[in-house]
């Protein structure tokens, strides 16, 4: 079972904050990999919030192909973070040529495009790069999105972080999500590493989604090109979130009503009973069957945690005004925010979604039995 940690803070923090929290929870992961998602960036990226940032791992050859490809479209490099790594990687970490974090200027022809169109094109480019990389095995692309950096690598989180020297001011961010992997496959594919990302939405999960195959079939059959990959059963959580938000226009409060709808007994007394019954029927193929704890980030920088119906995975949220953290275990929370009021820690149960909005004033607990904010 993997370990998860996420933090949202008024002041930009080093990714090491999350790595340290993962490190105290190391009994729960086997050091087979780490994935980091950074959002609401500080450092040099603070002043280029709209510039799309490409994150990935490239070989020298892949980088040259990337440059040609991007230049042909008209993207100009605006800022790049060079991660120079020591010659010998730590145990289990493969030798890579380049860990890329690069912000781009949009092509001039894209001026005046609607936001929706822009988002579509960014997704298509990411998917094209992924396809190119899979063909020649020379690039792995995690995200291509404004104000977003993702880093993933095989190995123990602390070893990888030290090796990549993540404790650098350029990588400071107000939202950090990190996952320490517990490997359940022999070969580790970086595309199977959490967090997953699509058009501003990102989630990471622990546990196994036993309803994976029918959900994957359903998402693929939506006819949306972004619903692909699925090297991990957990990627569907990100795509379901994207689907209900981007395609159905529903808010995060409805997420759990889709993945773990209320049972009929509870539903009949709900103030939105009719609406939720309809949703339960028409989104039936998106019902997950856990056990999973999901932590995610929305495009508007809202952070959330939700549990599946069985609530068999640990998860806790705590903090204080201005900084809140979500963690698999309380020891992770203690490591990151020792001076919080622990009596206010909350462990979301089978009906709860814990939400921290970008203002970071409080943890809002949304229970499925509560009235849903409609119209959604």
């Amino acid at each position, binding site marked *: *079972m993997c370990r998860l940690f996420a933090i949202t803070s008024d002041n930009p923090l080093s990714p090491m904050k999350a790595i340290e929290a993962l490190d105290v929870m190391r009994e729960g992961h086997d050091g087979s990999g780490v994935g980091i998602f950074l959002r609401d960036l500080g450092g040099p990226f603070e002043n280029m919030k709209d510039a799309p940032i490409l994150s990935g791992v490239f070989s020298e050859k892949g980088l040259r192909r990337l440059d040609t490809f991007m230049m042909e479209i008209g993207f100009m490099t605006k800022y790049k973070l060079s991660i120079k790594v020591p010659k010998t990687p730590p145990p289990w970490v493969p030798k890579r040529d380049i860990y890329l974090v690069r912000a781009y200027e949009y092509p001039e022809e894209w001026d005046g495009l609607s936001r929706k169109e822009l988002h579509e094109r960014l997704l298509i480019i990411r998917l094209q790069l992924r396809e190119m990389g899979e063909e020649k095995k020379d690039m792995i692309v995690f995200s291509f999105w404004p104000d977003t950096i993702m880093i993933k690598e095989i190995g123990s989180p602390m070893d990888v972080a030290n090796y990549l020297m993540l404790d650098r001011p350029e990588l400071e961010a107000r939202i950090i999500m990190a996952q320490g992997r517990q490997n*359940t496959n022999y070969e580790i594919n970086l595309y199977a590493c959490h967090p997953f990302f699509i058009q501003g939405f990102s989630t990471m999960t622990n*546990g*196994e989604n*036993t*309803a*994976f*195959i*029918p959900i994957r*079939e*359903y998402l693929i*059959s*939506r*006819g949306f090109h972004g619903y692909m990959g699925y090297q991990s059963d957990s990627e569907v959580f990100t795509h379901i979130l994207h*689907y*209900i938000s981007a*395609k*159905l*226009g*529903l808010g995060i409060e409805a997420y759990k009503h889709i993945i*773990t709808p209320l*049972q*009929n007994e509870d539903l009949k007394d709900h103030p939105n009973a009719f*609406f939720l019954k*309809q*949703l339960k*029927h*028409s*989104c*039936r*193929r998106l*019902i*997950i*069957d*856990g*056990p999973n704890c999901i932590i995610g980030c929305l495009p508007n920088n809202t952070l959330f945690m939700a549990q*599946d*119906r*069985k609530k*068999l995975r640990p998860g806790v949220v705590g903090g204080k005004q201005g900084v809140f953290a979500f963690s698999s275990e309380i020891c992770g929370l203690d490591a990151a925010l020792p001076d919080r009021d622990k009596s206010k820690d909350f462990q979301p149960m089978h009906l709860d979604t814990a939400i921290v909005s970008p203002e970071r004033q409080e943890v809002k607990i949304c229970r499925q039995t509560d009235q849903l904010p409609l*119209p959604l």
Partner: protein
Amino acid sequence: MSSNRPITPSTLSVKDLPWQIIWDKDKCTLCGKCTAVCPVNAIELGVFRKRSIETSMGLESTPSNDFKIYYGIRQKTDPAYSCVGCAMCNLVCPNDAIIPAKSDEADKLRYHINQGGQPRRRGGRRGTPDSLLDMIKFIRISMLTDPALDAGRHEFELTTLLGRILSPEENLSFLNENGWIPPVREIYPLMIGGMSFGALSPNMWEGLQLGVSYLNEELSMPVRICTGEGGCPPRLLRSRFLKYVILQIASGYFGWDEIIHDIPDMKEDPCAIEIKYGQGAKPGDGGLLMWYKVNKLIAAIRGVPTGVNLPSPPTHQTQYSIEESVAKMIQSMSMAWGFRVPVYPKISATSTALAVLNNLTRNPYAAGLAIDGEDGGTGAAYNVSMNHMGHPIAGNIRDAYLNLVKTGMQNEIPLIAGGGIGKNGNLAANAAALIMLGASCVQIGKYIMQAAAGCLGSETDRCNICNIGLCPKGITSQDPRLYRRLDVDKVAQRVVDVFLSFDTELKKIVAPLGRSTSLPIGMSDALGINDYNAANRLGIKYVV
């Protein structure tokens, strides 16, 4: 027969018959119960002459003959009276003196059972005990990475949906715009399929209905039962229990005059309307109620004269194309109940099923598709139809499901699978396998007759005389002397037993797979089979 007498081509010996009656003279009390109960008069009182030779030990006395008469049971060899193996003789015998035994080689009767040029007709189902469904195993067991669940104590929500479900996008937009949202029923995934009032005896029908009502009202299990094509007794049509009933209309339209006239008096809408276009046991053939069974009651409910054969045509005669057959009929039936009742067609499994399915996906009133495989049962059909016509259910359901996946409509049109589920007694395993191949729901007929009423029929040709109204258990007979053998309440009790035990077994299957919050429709990664070609064909794992 003397050895020097001519014999006819169809003169058979007891050995040539499929069943031989083994009778024990020592145990027999000559009570006559067996000859009285035999539904086909295969046995009769026999008077046997026996010679015994007395040889003496002495020199003076000579050996002598003694002719004696004894009475016993004689098995008839006329093809018309051949034993069907039902073993009712054994059931009624106070001393266990008699039992039919299956012949140790293929019978010769099969070549003679067409006297007068009439091919064999019978009830039951395909004469093959094999079952591909029985070969499917559930292999994705949750181990440590995701804990298996406790089937006895965990909460489960295993209902399914019957009705046209909108896509999420349409559903939300129709909710906003007050658009028409098709009726959807939440039902139990195991339903009792269409067996008509007429095919079944009144006691059997009432017992099934009673059991279903009990499951709903006392145990909150939303089990549904389909009427089959034979109408519905008016008292049920006007009762609140109608909501547990799926009314079937088929090509003979039997009983629909009564149903249509009763619509204004209905307190509840029926669960759904099933339009039968085909039946798995005899695809391309219409329903058949033979004259033996058309008594006054049946005739009244169906609106026909008594004592005539009631063959439904193979197709709906007023229609000539798929648009007519499917689209207009579905729409008309929907309209009859004010668009409040789901209407779906039932077809035989066939290699052309996808054409029907594709047509339904474009019909917003189509509430599902029931597909009945070659192993389905029937009350009466030609032997050749039953044994050689039709398509297996597993491949057909899988193709249909994957076709829906391709078009993204796997949630919108529920597939109902039927035909051979529980053929060898493995009801829950077969049902779960079909659900994981893509069915939303499964239908049973034969199984419930066997389990709830003690039907004796088998795939190795035991009994199977449902067609002639002589069912020795009173299940498919319209003769009160036979059907009074069946206790209505006891049938209802057995229906409840069957569903409760099925429910436990279904949980014992899904819990180790880690599933509890929804029925695992299409969870094909859980399935494996040790036949490489079958695995490829079904898109499941080949396991050895």
